[in-house]
Each structure stands twice: as structure tokens, then as C-alpha cells.
């Protein structure tokens, strides 16, 4: 973030973070198969950084656990994310970051569907279409300046 530039939304609402997932005895048991569930997917996404603010997507309520749906048996993951303001120019970038994070973190068998929460963004349809288009996602990641921003969103926060 550069010093002088103005942010689109300088004072967004900040939400409380959920705590760490509680570990159960089953988690430690070698013989029990833990299915991939909504919370697990949410845990993968919550630490993604917002491209503008030093805040995570969870703190900005861009991703919420209730908008994460996974079906482990049928290999489907569906995510809806909510931009902080309806004209947020970062929506595509945020969607792309979510998609890339999941592509890197989930087994190949999953089909990953990332969409904007219905009714929360001015150009919802266009963004959804871009995110659903495999070729366009691949092409976007060939663009090194775009990849750079995505990677920054996926880096663990430092100093």
C-alpha cells in the first residue's frame, strides 16, 4: 500500500475472528477417517489477506463459514464471498485469490466453484463468469503482475 494514495474504503467494518478449530480425540486417532468439511475449507481461506487492508478476508467478513459448502464424497466445493462494498474494484482479484488458494490446497479430485454472494456486487455476473472460466483463470496467472498480487494475498503476513 503506498503512503499517499487513498483507499476505496478506508474505514471498513472489522469482524471478530473465530478461534482455532477445537481438536477432538478423533483428530488424534490414527484409525478414524476425518472427512473434509466446511470448517476445514473455511480454515484454509480465512487467513487470505485483503489486497488493500492489513486485514484478513475473515476479519472483513468477505468469507464466512456459512458460505462454504463442501461435499467430500462427490468432490465438490462451493464458495460464496462478499465484497465489502458493492463497487469494490478488487472483487475479481479476491475471487481469484480464493480460487488459487483452493487449487493449491485441495486434492485434485475437487471441482472448485467460487462466486460472489448473490446481490452484493454491481458486476456480480461478469465476475462470476470470469472466475468460472478455466482458461481465463489460467491466463490471469500467466500475467506476472497479477500473480504477484495474488501471491501477496496468499503470503503469511510479516513485519
Amino acid at each position, binding site marked *: 500500500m503506498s*503512503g*499517499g494514495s487513498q483507499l476505496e474504503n478506508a474505514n471498513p467494518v*472489522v469482524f471478530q475472528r473465530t478461534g482455532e478449530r477445537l481438536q477432538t480425540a478423533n483428530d488424534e486417532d*490414527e484409525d478414524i477417517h*476425518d472427512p*473434509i468439511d466446511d470448517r*476445514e475449507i473455511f480454515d484454509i481461506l480465512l487467513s487470505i489477506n485483503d489486497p488493500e487492508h492489513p486485514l484478513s478476508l475473515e476479519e472483513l467478513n468477505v468469507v464466512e463459514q456459512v458460505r462454504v459448502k463442501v461435499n467430500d464424497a462427490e468432490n465438490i466445493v462451493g464458495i460464496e464471498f462478499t465484497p465489502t462494498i458493492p463497487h469494490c474494484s478488487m472483487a475479481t482479484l479476491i475471487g481469484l485469490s480464493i480460487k488459487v488458494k483452493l487449487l493449491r490446497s485441495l486434492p*485434485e479430485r475437487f471441482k472448485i466453484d467460487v462466486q460472489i454472494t448473490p446481490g452484493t456486487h454491481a458486476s456480480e455476473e461478469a465476475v462470476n463468469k470470469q472466475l468460472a472460466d478455466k482458461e481465463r483463470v489460467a491466463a490471469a496467472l500467466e500475467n*506476472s*503482475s497479477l500473480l504477484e498480487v495474488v501471491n501477496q494475498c496468499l503470503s503469511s503476513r510479516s513485519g
Partner: protein
Amino acid sequence: MGTMAADSALLLSLVEEYVSGLQDSKAKDTATGVRDGLFTVLQLVEALGLSLTSSQPHTRARGVQLLSEVLHECHGNLTEGEVEVLLAFYENRLKDHYVITPPVLQGLRALTKCTALPPGSAVSMLRSLFQDVHVQSLMLSERACVYNMLINLMESREAELKGLGADFVFGFVQSMDGERDPRNLLLAFQVANNIIHRGYDLGKFAEELFEVTSCYFPIDFSPPPNDPHGITKEELIQTLRDVLTGTPKFAEFLLPLIIEKLDSDVLSAKLDSLQTLTACVSRYEHKDLAEFLEGLWASLRREVFQTSSEKIEAAGLAALTAITSCLSRSVLTSDSEDSLCTFLELVLKDCKHHLCEPDLKLVWPSAKLLQAACSASNRASHIITAAVMPSLLEQYNSRTECSHRRTLLEVVQRFIQSVKGSQSREKEESVFVAFRPSLCSMVFSALTESNSSLQITATSVLTSLAQQTGLLLDSDVELAVDHLTRLLLMEEEERVSLAVVECAGALAELHPAAFITKLIPRLKKEMFSDPMDQDNNRVSSEQKSHHAVRQRCLSALAAVSTQPSVVQESTPVLMEVLSSAHAGSVAFSIEEVVLACRSLQRVAEQVKDTEETGRCFHDIIIPRLLSLALQAALQGDTSSGHLSPLLQESVLSAMVSVISTSCSRLQPMLAEQTALKVVSLFLSGDVSFLPDNSFPSNIQLLKHEGDSWSQSQMVCLLMGCVCSLPRSVEVPQMDQLLSELEEMSCSCSHQLSYTSAAKCFAGLVNKRPQGDDLDSLIQRTMKRVCNELDSASSSVCIQAFTLMIWVAKALLLRYHPLSTALTDKLFSLLDDADLGPMAADGFSLLMSDSADILSRGCHADVRIMYRQRFFSENSAKLVQGFNAAPQEKKPNYLKALSNIVNNLPKQVQITELPALLSLMLEALSCPDQDVQLSTLSCLEPVLADPPPALIRQLEALVNRLLNLTSSPAMNVRITSLRCIHAVSSFPEHEVLPFRARVLRALARPLDDNKRLVRRGAVQARGEWFLLGSPGGR
């Protein structure tokens, strides 16, 4: 006269050889001649005559150079007259051809070090220098020469230089203007620092001096790799900062510059600017700052509001505190405006309204800014709190959402804490006194909320209030105790009860009375109510919650017991839990009894060490514990039905901790009495000091007959006592005690009994004075142990092994020479068919800290770095043994190795790792999962800062780690994934070649059966993706 002639001939030949023969070494010989008095400097000048007047500039330069080098060696021996002649010569030579300038400057520099410098010469030297030399057209080393001249003269001729007035500053400014080399900059900054800090007259050149130095701000310098000069960026930053911040005369130039540089996109430039700002305002007065306050505030606000870096935020807040405290220092005159008020009004105007938006991002940056200003001075904290507290309190009351209230409460707490530093005297009334009633009612209302985060925050606000004078009245304390008690008894959530217990501990230290009269009786009543008595059909969940209540009560009793007066009341309650549990009059679970012991131990640990509390443990607690344990032991043999919980190993171990902690802290006299009583109880069955004395007279606790384990295991309590006493305390009847302990440890069949006997023996041996007695004792024991271990048919092999390993540890810790014999025996057992794996595990016991005895807390003789010493003496043995061992025994060696290495400090691990690396990599492919796991946990910390040896073996390391990610044991999979994660932060060019392979291999654990494994895989794979990718790493 003959020698004189010979000397002058020698001198002429030296000059000739140096000047025409270009033999540099002759300079040294000439200097030696001067120093030894063979010829004088002036004779040298004479001898140089021809060269100095030569028409060839290079010959003249060579001549001057010889003279300068000699002066460099001999400047200490010159007379004032000689110096005068030389100076006139050198000053004149400054006007000569440019090739002569370098040796002239060297000569002048040598003269600046002369003690015999005549008055006025410094001024004349500098005048010529500034007039005739353009410093920045000189080479690097000549420029350094000039700076060094200035530094030397500033040391010795300060008054004279100051006489030059501002001309000196101007001359210096001209000399350094345009300097580019960091080495020279350090020198030039040093001169500038001297000018500023030693009171030289800047005259009208303040701005020039500022310009010529500030053009380097902010410093951007990265030393070349393998820089031989060792100049760091930090060093440059600090010296320049000292210059720029050194005088308020620079304020009007520096402050606008800082405002400008804060606009930079470079993080380090911002940071440097903020730190420079903090440094400079400490020297400024309000009038220096006045016209820039608005600009500074705008920049600081922007940085704190928008930054994503914690460092910038912290630096920005520190700068705000510094500015505020500068303004607070100013003395007000009747006609000037109060600049502190004006400034704080600015801050409040921009920040205060954000405090009313507790769910928006800017609430915290605003609060932090206000708190930073608040912490600067008492006046500032009055102004700020008066402005923000009413609205915060009102907000709290009008908001209904818990998350909003919690944020407001946290903000309030930070305000309370921020004034701590600015209050000059402890007894001074808190600035919050005006808000006392509202603060208290806010806290108490938050404590009654059902939201646990709110409750937790409220407890810490309560603690903060208690720590400031006058914020809690006695009636408030009582009310607080009521709230805390209620939460302890009713609130199920663990986070809340932890916070409540902590808060109770903090308050009880300040206000013990209310806790004695209210909390302790109430907790006692609650713990001793027995849910089973009232209704046998109670559901188990209710029993569970009753257990949780007791658990909380027990830990609260411990937490509040810091003042002796509280201890007098709380320990009887804890003791009563033990006696009721033993008698069976109230049903306490084993776990609850253990917790009661833990609480007693905590009390022993934290209570203020007074005679009074020492007596309490010596006279009451220790005898009662022993008495209860003995009653249980005697009953154990006879009664059927109710089996006392005090016979349980877990309870006994907890009792050992109580006894051991309190014995280790007893005053010497009490300790001696306790030792006497306890030893006579165990050796001769003397029960006279025990309360409730109805014991038989023929008790023999160390003579185990048949299966009377219930009595023999009491030896652990003996251990807790005699092994924890201060070393100065003499344990009575030592020889008999040792021999009975040895006998018991080698013959008893009950594990807790023989292990405790062995540990007790070892604990005493560790503290025994050096000498023949000790040596023969050890040798006797060693012989006995080895006999048992070597005889194939021994039935007490394990017992002997246990004694051996504990004695070995006791001796190893104190560097006793005989420890080697025992540890060598342990090494040899690694090849033993039966004891091999046990021996390998034994190294873990040997190298790790033991919980109950042989620790520094128990006053044991523990030398520093005994682990390193053991390691360096034995690692070769281990490697040899490994190489020589048959295949099926190799895992024992690897396990022993990982047990040893795991316990070494990280620094040692890193230095020793190269030698062991191949063995450790071998261990990673050893099929034994324990070996894999402990090797991985050894490697993991080392990976954070990998030694070159490890990087050379990267291929093998990565391969083995990747293999382990499909191990059948989930812990191995998890740890190996963590290691792979760590490898991603190795130097990029080393690991980049593995990227594709690692990413492919990590795809599999993404679909692992276990969630914890998948989590590790996700994290590791994410990092490897970022490696070498734009925006990644």
C-alpha cells in the same frame, strides 16, 4: 664527529634509496634512525634538500612522502620549534603541484597528532587547507586524511578551532560537500557531530551544515557481500541521526524534511523518518515544533491509520508520544497559547469520533494514537481522558451488541494502562478518579453479561483498576469478590474461569482481607457439598459439573494464596480435602485429590518467603501429609472395601511435589529439623511428630517384606524431602540411609518403590561431598549393579538397570569422574539383546531435566553445559558403535543419538550437526517410528537456520522427508510436513530446483485421511508455491 659523519652518510643513502631507488622499506629505517637519535627530523629535511627542490613533481612528491612517513612514526618526539618549521614547509607545499598534495596531507595529519603543536598553528593549518585544497577532488584516502585531521584537531585544539568562528563550519561544509564513500561519511558525520554537540558556533551556516548532511537522509546503503570494512547501514543511520537531531537550530529544516520523507513508499525510509522524529523532539522545545505540528500530525495519523506494518505503527505511536511529551515540557507564559492543548485538540478532533464506531477498522488505530498521547505526560493524560472517557462510558451503556461493548471495554482498559507510565508518584491519585463510579459499574455490569469474551475483558479491566491508587473502594473490592466468586462457581467456560482465577490472584495480593472473609469460606462450602449425598440418581453430567466446580475452586484457592494471611486460611481447606478423601467422609475423585496437592504445591512456590509460612509448612503441612500417607499405607494392608486414594501413584507423586517444593524453600534451621524427623520416621519408625498419632510402634518403612508395597512406596515421600533440602543442610544417618535405599532399590519388586529408592539414593549421592567415602560408595554400588546386569539369570535386572541410570545421572550432572564408567556401561548395553532398547531410552532420562529430583530447584549439584560436555565426549563413541553394530542393533544407536541430540541446546545442535548429519539422515530412513519422530523433532529447529553442511545434503534430506510424508504414523507425517515447510525458507537458489518435485509429492498428503496431516500439507505446499514466484518469496 666520526659517527656524525657516518650517520649523515647513512641518512643520505637512505634518502637516495627511498626517493630514487623507490625502496619503500627505507622509510621505516629512516624513522627508526630518527627515533634512535641518529639524526633529527630537520637533518632529514636538509638531506632531502635536492629531492624537495627537484624540477620533477614526482621526485618532490617522493621526497615529501618520505618525510611524512617518518613524521607518521615519530610525531611524538618533535619539539615545538621543529613543528613550526615543518608546518611552514607543509602549508607552503599545499600550493605545489597536485601530485604532491597526498603526501603533504599525510604529513599534516601526522602533525595534527603532535602534542607540541604551537599556539595558532591549528588555525593557520586549517586556513591553508580550506583555501588551497578542494577536498572532493581528492582520492578516497586523502579525503579520509582531511577528516581525520579535523577529528584530531577537534580533540586537542578545541578552543583554538572555536576561535575560527563560523569559518570552521563553513570550511568543513565545503570539504564534505558531495562525499560519496560510506567510510568517509562515517568520519565526516563524526566531525559534524563534534561541531554540534561540543558547542561550535554555527553562525549563519546552520542551514548549510544541515543541507550537506541531510542530503544523505534517509540512508539507503547495503554493504557489498563480504564487505571487509564492516560498515553497516545501522551505523550510518545512527551517526547521521545524531547529527540531524543534535540541535534545535535544525528544527526548521529537519521537520519539513521528515514530513516529506514520510510520504515515501519505502518502508525503511518511513521507519527511519519516524525514529528520527522521535529522537529530535526530545531536544526541542514547543516553539521549535509549533509551525509544523499540523503537518506532523497529518503524517503520523496517515501512517498509523493506513499501515500494514506493525513496526511502522509502533514507531508512529512512539513519535506521537515523544511530540506530546515535548509539548508537555514547555513552560507556559501568560500570553502564549498552550501548544499542548492545541495539539491534543487536533488529535482528538481526528480520532475521538472513531471511538464511537467500535465495529469499524479505525477504532483501534484511533485508540492507540490517543493512548500514545495519553501516556506522554500527566497533563496530556488529564486532557485526553477528560475528553474521551465520558463518551466511551456512555457508548458502553447505550450499545447493546456484545462485540461492541467488548471493544469499548478493551479500549478503556488500554487507556487505564497507558497512564501507568506517566504517573510520577505511586501514591498519586489516578487521573481516572473522576470516573471511578462509572468505571466500576461498567466493569461489574460486564461481569454479569453472559458473553464470555466480555467477561474475560472485564476481569482484566478489574485487575487494572485495582492496580491504580484509589480506583477501588473497599466496598468495590467486596463487590468484586462477590462477582468473582459467582463466576467461579457458575461459569463453565474454561477461558472465563482461567481469567477469573488470574484476576482473583491479582486482587488478593492487594486486598487479602476480603478474600479471607468472603471467598475462601464460600469455596470451602461448595467443595465439601457432596452431590451424591443428596440424590443418588443425579445424572452424570451434573457430577461432571460438580467436578469442574471443585477444580476451579482448587485452582482459585492456590491463586489467591500469595499473602501469608491468606495462606493461613487456604491451606487448611486444601489439607481437609486430602483428609476427607482419605477417610472417605466426602467423595473426592483421585483427580480432585491430585489437584488439591497441586494447589498446595503452587502455594508453596508462590508464597512470600517468610518465617511464618515456613513454619506453616514445617509444623503443619508436611507432618500431616506424611501422617495421612502413613495411615493409608497401614490401612492398605488390612482393610478391605474403601481403598484410600492416597495409595495411588498419581496422588503420591503430587504429594512428593508439595513436600519437595516446600523443603527446598525452608529456612536452614527448619530444614534441618524436618530432615531429622523424616529420616527417623523412615529408618527407625519414629512417629512421634505425626499428628493423629495412633500408629503402631514397629513400623519399618524401608524393610519391605512380602508384598507390602503400600508401605514400601512411601519411600518416594522420603525422596521428596531429603533430596530437596539446601546443600548446606546435613542429612542425618546418611550411611545407613544410603545402604537401606540401595538394598531396597536392588531387591524390591514394586516398581514405584524401587524406582523411588533408586532416585532417592541418586539424589543423595549427587549432593554428597567429593572424597574417598563417595568414591568407594559408588564403586560398591557399581559392582553390585554390574553383577546383576551381567548375570543371565538375574531376576532384578531391571531394578539394577534403574539404579545404574539414576546414579549415572546424579554423577554426570556434577562432573564426577566416575560417571564415565557408568555411562560407558550404558553404551555397551545398546548391543544387549534384552536391555538394548531400554538403554537407548535411558539416554533420554540422562539428558533431560527430571521433574522431581536432581534439578537446580532442589539445590542439586548441576554444572552448566553438562549435556554439551557429555555429548562432545561421547558422540564419537556412538558413531563408532553404530558402524560396528550388527544391522538389527543399529536402531538402538540411532535412538540413543536422537535422545541425546534432542536435549542439546539449539546452538550446540547447529554446531554439532555437520558431524552427525549422515547418521541423522540414516535415522530418517530407519524403520523404527520412534527414531524417525525424534530425529525429525531434532532436525526441525535446526532447519530454521540451516548450517551449510545441511544444505550440501539437501537432496538426501528432501528425499527422506518426502518419503516420511506417507508414513503409517500420523505424527511422523505431520512432523515431516513441518520440516518440509521449514525447508522452503532455505536460500532460494538452493531449494528452487526441488520446487516441482515437492509440489508433486505434497499433492498426496492433501488428501490424507487425517485432518491434522492435511493441514500441515496445505501450509507446506502453500509456501512452496510462493517460492520463486512473483510476489511470493
